[in-house]
């Protein structure tokens, strides 16, 4: 039984990826945000470009700003987005 997570994309990333959300099965060896990023970047194209390790994107796990080491588990909500520009 695969672990699944919900992925959300906002603003420029939502437009570039052509989707606002998706559910994916978490590969058995992935347990961190860095693993999720690498899994998506492996899709190539815009995914590889926008989620390259050095790019200025931000991420949240369960609605808290998260870093590469943040643990990701079954049922989590993981979001990728550009640096924020509110206010």
């Amino acid at each position, binding site marked *: 039984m695969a672990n699944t997570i919900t992925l*959300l994309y*906002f*603003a*420029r990333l939502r437009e570039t990826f052509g989707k606002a959300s998706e559910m994916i099965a978490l590969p058995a060896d992935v347990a961190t945000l860095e693993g999720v990023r690498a899994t998506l970047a492996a899709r190539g194209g815009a995914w590889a470009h926008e989620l390259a390790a050095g790019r*200025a994107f931000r991420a*949240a796990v369960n*609605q*808290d*700003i998260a870093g590469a080491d943040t643990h990701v588990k079954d049922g989590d909500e993981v*979001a990728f*987005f*550009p*640096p*924020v*520009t*509110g*206010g």
Partner: protein
Amino acid sequence: MAVRVQAEDFDVGRETALLRHGNPRIGAIASFIGVVRDLNDGDSVAEMTLEHYPGMTEKSIEDIITQARGRWQVMDALVIHRIGTLKPLDQIVLVVVGSAHRGDAFAACEFIMDYLKTRAPFWKKEQTGSGARWVDARAADDAAADRWRTKA
């Protein structure tokens, strides 16, 4: 303490009166209003659309207010942030902080604004004469938020 993310405009006079009404010990109210300018990075802006991350937005602003209350004496605070399509001269954001003394009110209000600019998940897309563009985060905003870290 109240956080509202809404398409509707707000009235600083009404919101200030409501906040004060709830707490007669407030002696100082600092507030901030952000307004859509008609010029950004040299291009004239016709309108902009504000996107956000529902759920996380409210949560992150509540976290910011909680941090402010931990640092300064804050009797009440209100944050209203608008979303959707806004035009030049429209109000975007309101922060009101009530305290016993003005130093706390000013510091907490500016702290909340600096963090709103750098932490709360909002994104602006502008319509200009040369097409639509996502606004880039400003280095100056990150610097303003970093300022507070040195005092921790």
